[in-house]
């Protein structure tokens, strides 16, 4: 990312704004209640206004005094720098005092507390700007502080709660729970006492054999000294894979799945990407829907479909092949479902990579006599390697975090993401759940860090290849046909799976009675429709702040230079690398008591959605901003517009199309969220995705399929509307919808 241009400091001409904020802070702190009685957001304690508290508590009195002082400073005529410095000192004191007051009282936060703290934060920002310590516009500096506060509160605090809960049990620091959980065979066991063979020895033997073989082969190829290192690495990798294959437990299941699914999805995604760019057959036009598929698939749909087609009474296994088998219940079934779900993600990443391949290199190779078949391993593969690594790691993270598929098709076997859920829901052991969560977090963060280091942090691949004038070589005929037939088979499988869910929604009992019936759809009344309405409403509520906050943070991180910029960027992206169940349990641990009591309200669900989808919004914003020339903003600044005005009137309209697609994307992602909200639902606030799970678990497969079908159709409608709308809004950037 290029270095941001510092916005030159302005005279803070609109002084009334500072005074206004200060007055608002004073008013809120004194007149609005600081406490609520319970969970309900409207249950304000009338006697807890700042004025009432001030008589009993010196802290409260201090807060009011500081607020009054800020008003005075805001209107006092004097040199701007010293006013700014005074404002910073006072406002910081205000934040600290308010925080202490809230913490000591321990009651759930009321509006007075919230507005007061935010007000003080804003004043700190304004002061930092006026005093010249931060070389930014007051609006932006306040925005930075707000963004930092929100990110700390709703991303870092929950994650910290998870890590702390794994070692802080009953008020003391102990690794007892940690050790017990990690040494349990349900977590990981290599040499199981119940089996006859010695798995550890076996894995070591496999590693040894592979090491020797690799060493011999490499030495024959003339690697010399490095053959030894290659052999060692090969042996270690083989031993690790063998250990994964032979072992037991949640860690083994999740890791094995991540590795296998990552490899297979990346391979398929690469093949499809090559097809879509280089194929000469008409099948490449079917590739369009492929990229949209992961968006519109609610969770559990693929799982239900797998059950329907490949379960014990599945259509393919039982009806057609006549076997009644369990083989798909467990890691194998989950692997198939995940490959189907995540290949489109790998495809999206690799399409950009393939498009960016420099065709002139291939042309050069061709003029030197290379056949198209020779080009693939010698020219294309090395160029695409970093992109392939990127795709592999992304899919690995998604696989590790996957919750929906293991729950439906996992056959009751343990996986890390589901064990977090069962540890809390089944055993109520938040410390055990936190241990699983911490392990999962460590894994995904490691993968995320690897990915950032190797690929430099570009998840969202923009479609801007530099034309070199050379045309890319089409695939050799035999390869084209082979890959296209794989793709056609793939699409048929996908259609079959989705189709089975739609069919299951209107048949009486899958596996027994295939007569057509609308009873399942009728049975959705009233609970199913009610839940769907709630989901749509909450997702809509979450979509707008998601995009706004994401856009703001994207702008700050891309265009403004301030201390802690990298930290803010990293923390905002953290929720991308955090599995949903971990974030979910973090929210429960962090917001279940004390001043921050939020569980059981709609607000906490909306917040979970917002901060979960933020990284996507940030990435989209950054991509859009990089296409907008900074000279436009400079012109606006030169004409004395503040940053707020510039953002609103200059930048936002130009990024309109990206904002809209970000909005729809955030909405769709919220509609299909399950793992991070499954701990936060209540009888009044139940969501469609968790309702599908309930239906499945309590035997109403038909109703589950019906609700899933309705949800899918709704999402298809939303995405299609976006396609239509964005084309009319801005034909130039219509391609942005591919994200």
């Amino acid at each position, binding site marked *: 990312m290029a270095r941001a241009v510092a916005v030159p400091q302005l005279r803070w001409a609109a002084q009334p704004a500072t005074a206004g904020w200060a007055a608002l802070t004073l008013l809120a702190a004194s007149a609005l209640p600081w406490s609520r009685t*319970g*969970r309900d957001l409207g249950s304000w304690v009338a006697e807890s206004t700042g004025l009432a508290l001030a008589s009993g508590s010196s802290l409260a009195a201090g807060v009011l005094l500081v607020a009054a002082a800020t008003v005075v400073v805001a209107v006092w005529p004097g040199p701007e720098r010293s006013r700014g410095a005074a404002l910073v000192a006072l406002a910081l004191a205000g934040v600290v005092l308010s925080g202490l007051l809230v913490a000591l009282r321990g009651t759930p936060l009321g509006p007075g507390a919230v507005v007061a703290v935010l007000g003080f934060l804003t004043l700190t920002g304004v002061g930092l700007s006026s005093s010249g310590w931060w070389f930014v516009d007051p609006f932006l500096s306040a925005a930075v502080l707000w963004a930092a506060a929100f990110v700390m509160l709703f991303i870092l605090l929950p994650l910290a709660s998870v890590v702390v809960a794994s070692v802080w049990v009953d008020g003391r620091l102990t690794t007892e729970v940690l050790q017990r959980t990690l040494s*349990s*065979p*349900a977590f990981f*066991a290599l040499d*199981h006492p*119940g*089996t006859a063979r010695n798995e550890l020895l076996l894995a070591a033997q496999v590693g040894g054999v592979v090491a020797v073989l690799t060493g011999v082969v490499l030495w024959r190829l003339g690697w010399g000294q490095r053959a030894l290192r290659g052999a060692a690495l090969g042996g270690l990798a083989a031993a690790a894979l063998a250990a994964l294959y032979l072992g*037991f*437990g949640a860690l083994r299941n999740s890791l094995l799945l991540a590795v296998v699914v990552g490899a297979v999805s990346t391979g398929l995604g690469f093949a499809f990407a090559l097809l879509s760019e280089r194929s000469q057959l008409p099948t490449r036009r079917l590739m369009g829907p492929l990229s949209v598929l992961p968006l519109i698939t609610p969770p559990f749909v693929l799982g239900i479909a797998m059950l329907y087609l490949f*379960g*014990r*009474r599945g259509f393919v296994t039982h009806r057609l092949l006549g076997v*009644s088998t*369990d083989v798909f*219940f467990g890691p194998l079934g989950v692997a198939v479902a995940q490959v189907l779900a995540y290949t489109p993600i790998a495809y999206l990443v690799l399409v950009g990579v393939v498009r960016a391949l420099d065709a002139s290199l291939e042309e050069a190779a061709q003029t030197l006599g290379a056949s198209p078949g020779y080009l693939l391993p010698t020219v294309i593969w090395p160029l695409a390697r970093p992109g392939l690594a990127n795709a592999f790691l992304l899919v690995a993270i998604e696989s590790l975090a996957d919750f929906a598929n293991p729950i439906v098709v996992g*056959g*009751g076997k*343990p996986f890390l993401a589901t064990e977090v859920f*069962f540890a*809390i*829901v*089944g*055993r*109520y052991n*938040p410390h055990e759940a936190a241990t699983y969560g911490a392990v999962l977090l460590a894994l995904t963060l490691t993968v995320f860090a690897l990915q950032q280091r190797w690929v430099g942090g570009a998840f969202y691949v923009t479609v801007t290849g530099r034309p070199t004038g050379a045309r890319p070589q089409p695939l050799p005929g035999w390869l084209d046909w082979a890959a296209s037939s794989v793709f056609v088979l793939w699409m048929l499988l996908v259609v079959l799976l989705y189709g089975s869910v739609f069919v299951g929604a209107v048949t009486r*009992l899958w*596996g*027994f009675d295939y007569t057509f019936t609308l009873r399942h759809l009728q049975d959705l009344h009233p609970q199913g429709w*009610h839940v769907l*309405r*709630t989901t749509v*409403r909450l997702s*809509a*509520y979450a979509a*707008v702040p998601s995009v706004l906050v994401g856009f703001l943070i994207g702008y700050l991180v891309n265009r403004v230079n301030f201390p802690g910029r990298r930290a803010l960027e990293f923390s905002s992206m953290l929720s991308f690398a955090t599995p949903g169940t971990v974030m979910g349990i973090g929210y*429960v641990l962090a917001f*279940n*008591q004390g001043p921050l*009591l939020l569980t*059981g309200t*709609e607000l906490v669900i909306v917040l979970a959605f917002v901060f979960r989808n933020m990284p996507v919004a940030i990435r989209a914003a950054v991509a859009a901003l990089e296409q907008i020339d900074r000279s436009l903003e400079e012109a606006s600044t030169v004409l004395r517009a503040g940053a707020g005005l510039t953002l609103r009137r200059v930048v936002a*309209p130009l990024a*309109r199309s990206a904002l809209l697609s970000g909005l729809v994307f955030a909405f769709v992602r919220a509609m299909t969220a399950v793992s991070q909200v499954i701990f936060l639902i*209540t*009888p*009044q*606030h139940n969501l469609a995705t968790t309702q599908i799970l*309930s239906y499945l*678990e*309590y*035997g109403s497969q038909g109703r589950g399929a019906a609700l899933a079908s309705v949800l899918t159709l709704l999402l298809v409608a939303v995405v299609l509307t976006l396609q239509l709308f964005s084309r009319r*809004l801005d034909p130039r950037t219509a391609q942005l919808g591919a994200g």
Partner: protein
Amino acid sequence: MTVRKAWLLLAGLLLLLPASSGAGPAQRVVVLCSPNPAWCDAIKEEFPKATGIALDYVRLSSGEGLARLRAERRNPSFDVWFGGTGDPHMVAFEEGLTEAYRPKSWNDLRPELREAVAGKYIPLYAGILGWALNERVLRERNAPVPRTWKDLADPRYRGLVAYPNPNTSGTGYTMLATLVQLYGEREAFDLLKRIHRNVAEYTRSGAAPGQLTGRGEVAVGITFIHDAVDQVLKGFPISYGAPRDGTGYEIGGLSLVKGGPNRAAAITFIEWALTPEAQRLGPEKGQSYQIPSNSKTPIPPVAPRFEAFRVIKYDFVKYGSAAVRDRLVKRWTDEVFPLPK
């Protein structure tokens, strides 16, 4: 300009979306509901008609319900725990999550049930543990009809057995405790390890094995017999029974949550739930065929009777204590669950 108007319109529309959770009627009771979801729906409909108080419920199986109550200890959102096997109710009482309440109809409740629970919760119903059998699947696989618990270890039942996971289901724990009381802990766990090889799936809820059997996915689903009766009445081709070497039973619980938000409404609910009219909802609308605890309530004709099966003398107090329960469940999770099949 039109785009700006569109944004404003969108914002306006969003604000107008009706909030679904309004304040509602003044009084409400929040119920943690553990039995069949149909029964939960039935009480949600009938209780307001009888008393004018609105009812909200969350359906959680008994193990999960206990977990939820523990999680919300400091700020309970539930008022009453309705139904579910008794052992978790016992644990909840022991941990101070529920309080003892003596309803007005105490003397109408069946004395054997009252004594067994020793005042730690209010008995709501009684149900016998057993299994649902799909004889067609058994014939397809040439497996005989099982007669005792030990029969289930026979390799001919490979992949044909399902029972609930004791971590989440009270039914599963009842099975565990029954085996321990029948054979002693060491032999019971040996048996469970051998049965494990035949298990197709450990289900999350107690009624699910019956559903799996009904769908023909397994041949033997260990569940409470009244859940199997429900499947038969729904038209599934299964039969039911219980092991001949002895079987356990449950005494479904009704508990007043300590510190719940609507205590008065909760007490009204408890009194109502024990009346014959309310208990009749179980078989009539709730698809539940347990033996009701109020002796004045007529026993549903299809309900499995104690006289027909060999039921052990289940020590509810011992096996309902948190220490014993947690230890047995943990032992099962560590020793039986991770075994390869």
